[in-house]
Structure formats: C-alpha cells, structure tokens
C-alpha cells in the first residue's frame, strides 16, 4: 500500500519537482497524494543576511498513510512541518520556492496551500489538516478550559455549538483515553499532567475529523513511560479514523514502529526516503546508517553506543556539496584510501563498476565536497521502487549490518 505513486516516476533520477510539473491535472485529481510538497525552499532574513534552513524539500503523504520525517534537531523538520499550514511568521521567514499541494476535496484539483487565500487556509487549518505540537505545556492556552479550547475548534469547523459541541468534546476526551472526561472537560491545562495535556491536544486535533494529522515531535517533551502511550494512541487513532499521519521525530525506534514511509532529513535537505522496512533494513545514506547505529539495541551485548561525530551545521554555514560530507564516514574512508592507497581495495574488487582506481579517487572526494557540473548537492537517486537516496558515492556505500543484502548498490 505504501507509496504506490512512486512507481510512475522516471527511471533514474527522481526529481519530484519535475514530476509534478509533468503531470496533467487529471493525475492530480484521481491519484494525487493527499499532501504533496514540491521543491519547498524556506529562508530566513537575519541581521547577517539571508539563510536557508530548508532547501528543495519534496515530500508526499498518501491517503491513510503514516509518513515519518526524521532527523537530528535543527535540520529543518519543524520548519518544513510548520510551512504546510503557513505557521511561520513572515517576515523573517520567506517561502522562496515550491508548492504544497493538498487534495482538499475529492474530484477537484489539489490546492496549493502556499498560495491559497486566508479563508480557505483557515478552513484547512484544524478542519482538514490538524497539528499536534511538541510541548503540551505551552501549546494549550493557560486561561481557557480544555473543553472551551476543543469546543472552539468544533464550532469553527462543524457549525455546531453549545451543548452538542460540549458533548462531542467529552466524547473526544474519552476517545483519547482521558479518565472521567465529564470532569476533565472543565479543567484548566495546568491542572492536567503532561501526558494528559498531550492527549487533550490530540483530542482537539481530532475534533474535526482531519484528513491529515501533523504531529511535530509529539512525545519529545514527555516522560518515557508516557511516550509509548501517546504513540500507541496516535497509531490506533490513525487506523480507526482513516486519516493520514505525518510524524516529525528524531527517534528511529518510533519510525520503525509506526511509519509506513520515511523521509530522512539532514541540514535542510531530504537525504534518503523510502518504504520504512526497506530504509531501516537497508539504509543507503551514510547519515541514515549513522542514525541507525545510534539506536540502542536491547539484545546486543556491546557496551558502547555509536554516535555521529560533530553536530548539525547551522543554516548560516552549510557546507558546499553534500552537506553531510564533513561528518561522513564514507568520505573519511575515501579520503583515507586516497592517502594510503589501499583502504577501499576490497570494495572495488567486489564491485567492478565503481571507479576505484587511484587516479579517480580525488575526483570522488571533490564531488562530495563540491558537487558536479549540474548541481552541488547530490540529487535523489532511485535505488529501487520504494527507495531513494541522495549521496554522490551511493555506489560505494557499504550496507549496514552483517546480512549480505547488496540490493541497494546493485539497483
């Protein structure tokens, strides 16, 4: 079921921006994904010039699908998520390029949320796309009762009010697992625990049966024991109410559990995306591999947990070429082999197509750091039907783990 629409893309390079432009309207009407972000570029005007924390991001969410957007803090996930409902203050934020198509109604062309008028946008916000934020402590208005805040949403989008809306609010609170909802509906946010507040946030988001729920790190601010419950709740609600879920997280464990499809983001760009099972079983970007190695495994005996050296660069100092190359293990390995002349020999023996002779290697390194003639950053390449990766040296990536699944490199 996951990401069938990917099949129609071009054979080699899957630049989704081109793809949507080529498509005629009928495609969009009939099989368009629910949400289709194309080439989204967001910049911020600062005192020291313009920075671009999100660049050329393409992302799709199909109906009834759960999509995860993964990356370390500060890589642009939240900005991407907030752009969808135009929640970024402009200025200083600027939507430089791109479209965010949303298939609002069946049988009509999708609308571009970045260009639509305020009124339509308000109908979409809360009514068709709902959002749950990271910190339930600050995301609920402290001076209104929980019930009032849910009822407000219902009144805005469903045209019912008074006792009917209140009854719906109580029902919603019950549905998200809040005990004694008849009493809690009149509670103020500060009278509830963090987990309860997040449940109330989710109840508020669900109140108008949205087609898409965007959850921006919904569990990060909560206790570990509560995180689990909230995730289960999100999962069950997504299945029950046939909606799509876009989950922003930095936790690959969460992704494995809940997502059908996953996008990996680094320094403002999508570096790898694909069907969750494929990406997690066979990550082909050194960054994804690094993230996976950082997930603690219970049944593994080794004491030390891996880390990715360095930190995410700030948008004002993104590296040229592949933005991950200063931290990239593969680049380091290629550099070492260039210096010593033997580091990569075994790899090259195995794969005759890779340009592994000594003269070619400095060129490879240049590519990591500077890019080639067409672009500086590596484009997303199709590995197989449901797996894309943006790495200049994707041929040289060693598959993770001990299983001999070389499908990625062979594809």
């Amino acid at each position, binding site marked *: 079921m996951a990401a069938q629409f990917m099949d129609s893309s071009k054979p080699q390079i899957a630049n989704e921006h081109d793809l949507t432009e080529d498509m005629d309207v009928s495609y969009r009407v009939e099989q368009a994904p629910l949400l289709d972000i194309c080439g989204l570029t967001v910049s911020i005007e600062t*005192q020291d010039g313009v920075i671009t924390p999100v660049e050329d991001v393409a992302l799709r969410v199909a109906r009834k699908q759960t999509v995860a957007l993964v990356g370390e803090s500060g890589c642009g996930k939240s900005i991407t998520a907030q752009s969808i409902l135009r*929640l*970024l*203050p402009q*200025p*200083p*934020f600027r939507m430089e390029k791109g479209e965010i198509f949303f298939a609002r109604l069946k049988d009509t062309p999708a609308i571009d949320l970045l260009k639509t008028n305020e009124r339509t946008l308000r109908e979409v916000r809360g009514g068709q796309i709902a959002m749950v934020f990271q910190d339930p402590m600050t995301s609920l208005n402290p001076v209104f009762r929980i019930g009032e805040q849910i009822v407000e949403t219902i009144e805005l989008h469903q045209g019912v009010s008074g006792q009917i809306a209140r009854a719906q609010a109580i029902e919603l609170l019950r549905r998200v697992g809040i005990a004694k909802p008849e009493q809690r509906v009149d509670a103020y946010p500060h009278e509830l625990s963090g987990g309860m507040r997040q449940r109330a946030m989710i109840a508020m988001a669900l109140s108008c049966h949205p087609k898409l729920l965007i959850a921006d790190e919904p569990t990060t601010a909560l206790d570990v024991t509560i995180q689990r419950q909230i995730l289960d709740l999100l999962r069950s609600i997504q299945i029950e109410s046939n909606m799509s879920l876009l989950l922003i997280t930095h936790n690959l464990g969460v992704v494995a559990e809940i997502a059908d499809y996953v996008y990996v983001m680094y320094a403002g760009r999508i570096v790898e995306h694909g069907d969750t099972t494929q990406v997690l079983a066979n990550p082909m970007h050194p960054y994804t591999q690094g993230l996976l190695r950082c997930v603690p495994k219970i049944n593994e005996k080794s004491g030390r947990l891996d880390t990715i050296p360095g930190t995410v660069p700030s948008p004002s100092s993104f590296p040229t070429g592949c933005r991950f190359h200063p931290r990239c293990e593969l680049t380091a390995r290629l550099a070492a082999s260039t210096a010593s002349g033997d580091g990569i020999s075994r790899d090259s023996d195995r794969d005759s197509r890779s340009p592994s002779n000594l003269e070619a290697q400095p060129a490879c390194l240049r590519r990591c750091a500077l890019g080639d003639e067409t672009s500086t950053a590596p484009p997303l390449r199709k590995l197989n039907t449901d797996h894309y990766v943006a790495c200049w040296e994707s041929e040289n990536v060693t598959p993770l783990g001990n299983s001999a699944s070389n499908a990625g490199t062979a594809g």
Partner: protein
Amino acid sequence: MTRKCSAEPSHAVHSNWRRFRRNRMALLSLAGFVFFMLGAIFSLPTSARWYNVQATDIAVRSQPSLDPVVPLERFFDTSGANAIPSRLDQILYRMTSLFGHDDLGRSLTYRVLPGFLVSLCIGLGAALMATIVGTLWGSIAALAGGRIDAVMMRIVDVLFGLPYILMVILLKVGLTEPLTAIFGGQTKYADLIVLFVAIGGVSWLTLSRVVRGQVLSLREQPFIEAARATGAGHWHILRKHVFPNVVGPIAVYATLVIPQAIMQESFLSFLGIGVQQPIPSLGRLAADGVEAVNAFVGYWWLIVFPCTILVFTLLALNFIGDGLRDAVDPKSNAPTLV
C-alpha cells in the same frame, strides 16, 4: 578562570548599540537632543547674563519677530572697556526676539535656553539620586535576603501606597529650611538641590524593585552557579558576573527617571514651589505660559515655545529610554505570527 563560564549572556555594549541604532526614532531623538543641548551650553555664557534683562517699557509681551525689539545697549555695558560686543554676541543678539518676550519684557529665547539646562540638571540630579538610593536599597535587600529583604521591600510597598504628589511636596517643604541653612542662605543653589532631592526621593521606588528583581534572578542563573562551582568568591561573582549584567537595566530605568523628574519639576512649578524666580526652568516657563494664556488668549508664544520644547525634551528622553530598553531586552523584538 571563572571568566569563561558557559552561557553567560553577553553584555556586549556593541550589539546593544547596534540594536539601538536600528530604532530610528530613538536615534533621531538622541541627535536632536544632543544638538539642542550643545546649543544651550554654548550660549550659556550669554544667556546667563541676559536671562533676567527686563524691558518693561518697550518689550512687554511683544510678539516673536526676527528683528530684536530691545536695543543692543540694554544687553551690553557699552560704556565700559568691552564697548564693542563680540561677533558671537552680535549673532546671539539677533535672536533675542525670536521667541517673543514675557510680561516683564524679558527675551523668551534666553529664558528657554538656560531653562532647558536647569530642567536637565534637575532631571539628571534626581535620576542620580534615585539610582543611588534605588540600587543600594534593591541590591542590599536582594543580597541580604530573608527577613531584612522582607522588611525593606515592605517599606517600599508602603511608600508606594503614599500619594506621590504629597510626598514630593512634603519633602520639598520639609527640606527647604535645613538645606538652605547648610548652603549659608544661598537660596538659588539650595533650591535646585532641594528640588532634585525631593523628586529623587520619591523616584527610587520602582528602581529598587527592578534592581532587586534583577539581582535575585541573576543569582539563579546557570552561569552564576557555574562560577560558584569553580570556586569563585562571593565578591568576585558580584563584581564580575552580577554587576555587569544589572548595569544595563539600571541605566535604562535611570534614563526613564530623567523625564519623569522634569515632569515633576514642571508640576511643582505649576504649584508655585518649583525653582524660584527669576531662575527659569522649562516647567516654570510652561506653567507661567499656561497661566498667562488662560488669562489673555492672545499671547500664544508664551505657551507654545516653552511647552513645545518641554514636550520635545520629554519625548526625546522617553524615546531614548525606550530605545535603550528594547536594545537591552532583545526578547521584545522576536517575530510573531499575527
């Protein structure tokens, strides 16, 4: 060794100045204010001689004009050694009737200019007084803590409960005699000092609260903890970490006390207990103008010039203070959605 504590907010004067500079109104106010102040200071030797030159015969409430109404001889002792006035004095003489004349025929120009400086002195004196008392009171309360803190702040609460005007008047009335005695009957200076002590004596309350709040919140900051953890002494922490970080807010509030004090002085002048005649101050001139105009509507210049300059002075000082506050507290510049 304690200098490199992490997360210490940079009390960088440079970035504050950069933020202040972007506030165009504040910058404009500062420029205008400095320009006017320089003018008043440079003309002070002249206006000190001319501010009380009366011409009851020819210039009583004469209108503003570009030509001097009062002849040159009235301002200069032409019989003496310096029979020929300097070029600068001649230029300044051309301005004597620019703002018109008051009911004693005195040049309003040369009452407004020194009056501006007198008001500024009262404002600065009161602000200095308020800053010293408020800073000491607030920081002692914060550092002592416990019962002393409670009592000291309770006193401030009670003082806030007193009518402001009554306090100023009582202080002014009460202080006049002893302070005049101290200055050996020099009423002119004693009067000014009484004024700013009285005004400063009621203006330190807000400042003491601000300082106490700042010191208390700073003591909880991680970088102070860090300094303490590295073994820095109490005094060292105060000097190196607390003091530099409270200077900004104190300076801002002190700046905002200046216009308040000038306002208070104008109010006291309106009551008739401000600076004593014939010393001019902006408040005194404005209050006199208001009374004159209420009685005789025609003499608009008596109210327009002093009031305009008083209002512009206060406005400029308030803009500067506000700009400084925004610069010191950058949080208020974060973007919002709506």
